[in-house]
């Protein structure tokens, strides 16, 4: 795993999905407490580049850097 996520903060804005260069981000079928389908990262595709962190307005991501 290269990125930790806080799914409870996700507002499903879709910015990370759109900018992810590896298309590694999708959304869960379930909703979080705020009613949004939080993002899910495909660890196989993720390269830990940090673009999701950069574009996320809600502090969902923590790129571990390893």
């Amino acid at each position, binding site marked *: 795993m290269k990125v930790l996520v806080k799914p409870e903060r996700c507002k499903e*804005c*879709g910015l990370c999905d*759109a900018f992810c260069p590896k298309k590694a981000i999708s959304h869960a079928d379930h909703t979080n407490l705020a009613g949004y389908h939080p993002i899910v990262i495909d660890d196989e595709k993720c390269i830990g580049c*940090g673009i999701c962190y*950069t574009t996320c*307005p809600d502090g969902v991501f923590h*790129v571990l*850097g390893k």
Partner: protein
Amino acid sequence: MAVERKVPAIIDNPMSFCPGCGHGIIIRLICECLEELGQNQNIIFPIGVSCSSNLGGGLVTDRLHCPHGRAGAVATGMKRVNPDNIIITYQGDGDAYNIGIAESINAAYRNENITVITVNNTNFGMTGGQMSVTTMEGQKTSTSTHGRDCSITGFPMRFPELVASQFHIAYAARGTVSSPAHINQLKGYIKNAIEAQMNKEGYSVVEVLSPCPINWNLTPIKAMERIDNELISYFPLGEFKQRSVKEA
């Protein structure tokens, strides 16, 4: 080559901005810069009235809600009595350029050693998307329902260019959050602005073109595209007043 990227502790809170709003990115960038410059425990934010007010619940720093538009004056008072603290106003376009234009202009005019971050989303977001001085010609808002008629309401105001050309200030720039590359460029501008203040060079301002998906009636992605396709041609990105490097 992977680098750790973690939301700075002083802003690591859930905030009630709308999905896809640019505010969350902008305040995170400011806090990243403060952290990287070693100023995250030396910061006071005078916060504007608008969506900016949400920072009251987000920031874990000294912060003060200012009357609408007055952050430039409040910041002046703070900086004059606490010259060693970093003072950053965080305001929207309606706050800084409509109701607060006198305070904003005069802080720049005096070259107060403060940093002003204005979030330009071309409308009054918090109150439901009314026209502001940065609303684009033809843009429909709740007070320009047929599209802004600039012949009777004036043309969108370019504040960084105004203060950069007219006053003796330290730094003025405009960035945006519309793409990862732009976000990285913006972070450089914000860092310059804070460094200018640390170096006592004087007034620094960074305007940020920021999406307001809800009031623009666009999806977050489409809102970012609007910035790239419609706003940047009128509100160009870049530095309008560069820092003049002082001898150490």
